[in-house]
C-alpha cells in the first residue's frame, strides 16, 4: 500500500512539473515565436545568405535557404512555394532570350538588395607543375574564352595580358552554369554591352539566334562544360583533372575553394580583382532605380560600372536581391511576415558586417535606408526603428560617404596594362605568389630571358637559388614546353640552358616529396575507418544471428 501511494505521488509530481514546464513554454512563446520560413534562389549570393540564416538562429529564427539558382528562385516565388526569393536579376517581363515571360502581380513584391559582389573567373592552371595565381585577362579575352574563340592558353592575345607568364599550349575548358542562373544573366549582359560582336557570333553558332539577348541559360556547345550551381562550377574547376578549366562564379566560391581568380582589365587600364573594396568602389557607378512607384524600384543598371574610369573598378560587380512578398498568399502568411521582416532587418543591418570576410561587399548606406522602407511593406512585419550607426556596416560614416569605397587602395602599378605583371596571388590563394618574368626581363639579358625565368622560376622559395641559375642560364633557350608530369623539358628543346633548368626543377620536386607526414597517417586511418564501415555491419549481423537456426 505504501509503495502504491508513493508511486501515485511520484506520478502527480511528474505531471505537475510537466504542466508547469509546458505552461512556462507556452507563456514565453508568443512574445518571441517565429515561424520557420523558407526561400530559394541565387547560388551566387548563397554564401552570404546562408551565413545570415545561420546567424539568425540565435534569435530563434529558422530560415531554410535553398540555392537552386536565381531563375528557380523567381519561379518558386511566383508559384508561392517559398516565402522569399533571392535573385541576381529582377523578374523578366520581357526576356530577351526567348524564354517564357514571368508575370508577377503588380504590387505583390518588392526588391531589396541583399549583398554585393563580383562575378569572378576562377581558373585551374599550372605552369611547370606550379599553380598560376596571377592570371590577367582583358574583357575581350574573357568574352572570347567563354565563346570558344580563344581555345588555348598560349594564345597570343592572352600573352599580351600576361607578359610575365609563359602560358602552356593547353586547351582552355570554359565551365558554365547548366541551370537557370543570375550569374549567367549578369555575365551575358556584360558581354552584350561590351563585346556584342563576340557574343552574337557565338549565339548564332549555338543555335540560339535570333533570341540573342542576355540569358539565364548559358548556351552550350561541345567543348564547354556545364555544371549545376556555383558550387558545381567551382567544384569542377577545382578538381585535379580540370587543369586548363576556367569558370564564372561568385568571388566567395573561389576563396572557399582556395583557388585563384583572373584579374580583369577595367576601362582605366588596370587589371583588378573583385575584392570587397573594389566591388564597393565599382558599384558607386551602378545606377539604382529610385522611382519608388516603379515595379523595378531599387534594381540596378550596371552600364556605368562596365565603363567606370576609376582605377579600382572591377567591371563585373553587381548587387544581388531579395524578392520579398507584400501580399499574403501561397505558403506566406502574416505570422511568417513577422519572421521574414526580422530576418530582412538583420540581413540589412548586422549581417553586412560579415560580408567582407565571406568575399562579398557590404551595401552602402543609401540602399540600406531604402531597404528599411521596403521591409515595412511586408505583411505582419514588426517595424524596427534602427539607428543606422548601430549596424556597424563598414561602408557607413557620419557624413554619409561610402567609407569602404573612399579608403579602397589604388591598384599597384604592376597591375597596369603593360610589360610588368604582379606576382601576388588572387582569390583563395592570395598568399601564394607566382614567379613572373618581369624581374628577369629588367635585370637579365633581354630577348629570351622571359621564357627562361618562368620555366625554372615557377617554384617555391626552397628552389630559389636554382631558380636564379635558370634565369641566367636559359637566356638563349627557345620555347621549352615542359612535360606536366615530370616538369622536365624535352631533351634539347631548352637549348644551352636545359641542363640548368633541369637542375632547378629537380630541386622543386625534392622539396615537394615530403616523406612520411601526418597526411599519410590520416590516409591510413581514413582507409581503416572505411573498411570498418563496410565490414562492421555485416560482421555484427552475422554475430547477432548466430544463435538462430537457418
Amino acid at each position, binding site marked *: 500500500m505504501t509503495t502504491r501511494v508513493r508511486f501515485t505521488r511520484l506520478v502527480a509530481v511528474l505531471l505537475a512539473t510537466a504542466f508547469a514546464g509546458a505552461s512556462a513554454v507556452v507563456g514565453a512563446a508568443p512574445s518571441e515565436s517565429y515561424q520557420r520560413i523558407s526561400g530559394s534562389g541565387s547560388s551566387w549570393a548563397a554564401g552570404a545568405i546562408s551565413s545570415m540564416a545561420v546567424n539568425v538562429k540565435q534569435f530563434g529564427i529558422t530560415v531554410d535557404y535553398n540555392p537552386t539558382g536565381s531563375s528557380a528562385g523567381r519561379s518558386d516565388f511566383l508559384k508561392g512555394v517559398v516565402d522569399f526569393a533571392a535573385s541576381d536579376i529582377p523578374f523578366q517581363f520581357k526576356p530577351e532570350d526567348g524564354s*517564357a515571360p514571368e508575370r508577377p502581380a503588380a504590387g505583390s513584391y518588392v526588391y531589396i538588395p541583399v549583398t554585393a559582389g563580383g562575378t569572378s573567373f576562377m581558373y585551374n592552371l599550372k605552369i611547370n607543375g606550379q599553380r598560376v595565381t596571377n592570371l590577367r585577362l582583358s574583357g575581350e579575352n574573357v568574352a572570347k574564352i567563354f565563346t570558344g574563340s580563344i581555345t588555348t592558353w598560349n594564345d597570343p592575345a592572352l600573352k599580351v595580358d600576361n607578359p610575365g607568364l609563359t602560358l*602552356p599550349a593547353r*586547351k582552355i575548358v570554359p565551365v558554365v552554369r547548366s541551370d537557370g542562373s543570375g550569374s549567367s544573366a549578369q555575365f551575358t549582359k556584360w558581354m552584350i554591352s561590351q563585346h556584342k560582336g563576340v557574343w552574337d557570333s557565338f549565339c548564332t553558332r549555338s543555335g540560339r539566334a535570333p533570341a540573342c539577348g542576355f540569358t539565364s541559360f548559358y548556351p552550350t556547345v*561541345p567543348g564547354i*562544360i556545364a*555544371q549545376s550551381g556555383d558550387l558545381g562550377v567551382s567544384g569542377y574547376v577545382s578538381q585535379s583533372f580540370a587543369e586548363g578549366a576556367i569558370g564564372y562564379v561568385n568571388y566567395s566560391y573561389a576563396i572557399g575553394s582556395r583557388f585563384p581568380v583572373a584579374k580583369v582589365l577595367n576601362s582605366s587600364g588596370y587589371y583588378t580583382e573583385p575584392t570587397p573594396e573594389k566591388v564597393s568602389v565599382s558599384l558607386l557607378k551602378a545606377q539604382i532605380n529610385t522611382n519608388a512607384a516603379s515595379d523595378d524600384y531599387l534594381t540596378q543598371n550596371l552600364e556605368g560600372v562596365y565603363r567606370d574610369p576609376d582605377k579600382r573598378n572591377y567591371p563585373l560587380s553587381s548587387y544581388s536581391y531579395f524578392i520579398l512578398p507584400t501580399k499574403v498568399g501561397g505558403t506566406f502568411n502574416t505570422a511568417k511576415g513577422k519572421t521574414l521582416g526580422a530576418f530582412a532587418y538583420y540581413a540589412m543591418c548586422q549581417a553586412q558586417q560579415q560580408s567582407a570576410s565571406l568575399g562579398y561587399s557590404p551595401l552602402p548606406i543609401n540602399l540600406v535606408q531604402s531597404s528599411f522602407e521596403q521591409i515595412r511593406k511586408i505583411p505582419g512585419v514588426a517595424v524596427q526603428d534602427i539607428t543606422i550607426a548601430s549596424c556597424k556596416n563598414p561602408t557607413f560614416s557620419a557624413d554619409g560617404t561610402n567609407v569602404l569605397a573612399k579608403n579602397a587602395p589604388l591598384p599597384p602599378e604592376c597591375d597596369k596594362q603593360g610589360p610588368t605583371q604582379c606576382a601576388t596571388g588572387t582569390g583563395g590563394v592570395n598568399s601564394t605568389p607566382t614567379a613572373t618574368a618581369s624581374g628577369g626581363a629588367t635585370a637579365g639579358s633581354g630577348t629570351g630571358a622571359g621564357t627562361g625565368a618562368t620555366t625554372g622560376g615557377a617554384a617555391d622559395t626552397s628552389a630559389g637559388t636554382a631558380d636564379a641559375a635558370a634565369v641566367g642560364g636559359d637566356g638563349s633557350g627557345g620555347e621549352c614546353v615542359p612535360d606536366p608530369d615530370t616538369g622536365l623539358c624535352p631533351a634539347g628543346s631548352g637549348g644551352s640552358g636545359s641542363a640548368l633548368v633541369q637542375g632547378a626543377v629537380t630541386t622543386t620536386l625534392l622539396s615537394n616529396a615530403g616523406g612520411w607526414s601526418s597526411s599519410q597517417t590520416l590516409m591510413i586511418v581514413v582507409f581503416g575507418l572505411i573498411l570498418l564501415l563496410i565490414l562492421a555491419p555485416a560482421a555484427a549481423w552475422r554475430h547477432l544471428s548466430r544463435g538462430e537456426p537457418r
Partner: protein
Amino acid sequence: MSMTMVYAAPAADLPAPTPRQLAAPAGVGDKIFTRVTLLTGLIVLGVMAAVGLFLSIEASQALRSTGTSFLTTSEWFPDRNQFGIAAVLTGTVAIAVVAVGIALPLSMGTALFITQVAPPKLRSTLVSLVDLMAAVPSVLYGLWGLFFFQGQVIGVSRWISTWFSWIPLFRVTGAEPGSPLSNQTVFTASAFIAGVVVSLMVMPIQCSIMREVFSQVPIGEREGAYALGATRWGMIRIVALPFGRGGIIGGTMLGLGRALGETIAVLLIISPRFDINFHILEAGGNSVSTLIALRYKEATGFGLSALMAAGLALFALTLVVNFTASAFVARSRSGASSEA
C-alpha cells in the same frame, strides 16, 4: 434431350457421384486477407495507371503543339516551340547501356560466386555486403562519382580512346594522345563515367535476382553433372547457366529499367548537352531524368508540359523494359515454378 436421358438413367440406380466438399468455408481472417491483398494489388495498378494518365494529360499540350517533331528534335527550347527528346533519349539509352554492360558481368560473377563457389560460412556475409550496396542513397554515389571517382576513371577513358578511337563509339574530340599538355577534361562529365557510377547502383539489384535464381538450381542436376565427371565450371556451364537464363535476362532488364531512370547521380556528373552524341567517352551527355531535374524548377506552364512529355517518353520506355523483363522471368524454367 435424349442425351440427357441416357446419362440420367444410371443415376437413378446409384447415388450421384458428387465430389466431396474439400474446402472448408473461408474464415473471417482469410476473407480479410484476400480482400486486403486484392486491394493492395489494385492500388498498385491504379497508381501506375494514374501516373500514366497524369503524364499524358499534362503532356498533351506540349505534344499537340510539336507533333512528331518531338521525337526528332534534339534542342530544348520549349518557349520557342522547338524541343524534342532525340538527344536526351539517346543519351539516356547510352548511359543505361554502359551501366548494364558493366553491371551484367559483375553481378553475374558475384551471384555465381555466392551461390555456387563461396563456402557456406562466407555466403551470408557476402549477401549482406551486396545488399548494403543497394542501400546507399544514389546522391552519395553521385557525389562520390563527381569528387573522387571521376578523376580516377579518366585514365581508363583515355586508354580506351587512345587504342580504340578507330571505333566511332570511342572517339573523343579534342583528345590528343601524344601531347603531354592534352586536357583531361575532354574525358570528364561523359556518358561513360555516368554509366560506370550508375552501374554500381544497378549491380546489387541484378545480383540479388540472379542469386535467387541460381540458388534454385536443382540439386539433383548439380550432383548429376558432378557424377558424370563435370568440373565446377562445367557444372555451372551446363546446369546453372541454362537453368538461370530467365533470371539473368530478367535481372538485367530490371537493372536497365533502374539505370534509365537514375537522376541525381547522373545530374551531378554529366555536363548537359543537347545534340545526339554517340561518343560515350566524350565530355557531355544528357538523360531525360537529368533534363527534368534541371529544368522543372524554372519551368512554368508550357515548359512544364514539355518536361512532362519527356517524362512520359521515359515512363513508356521503362514500362516496356520492365514488362519484357517480367515476361522473360515468367517464361523461364526457374521463374515459372521451383522444381527442386
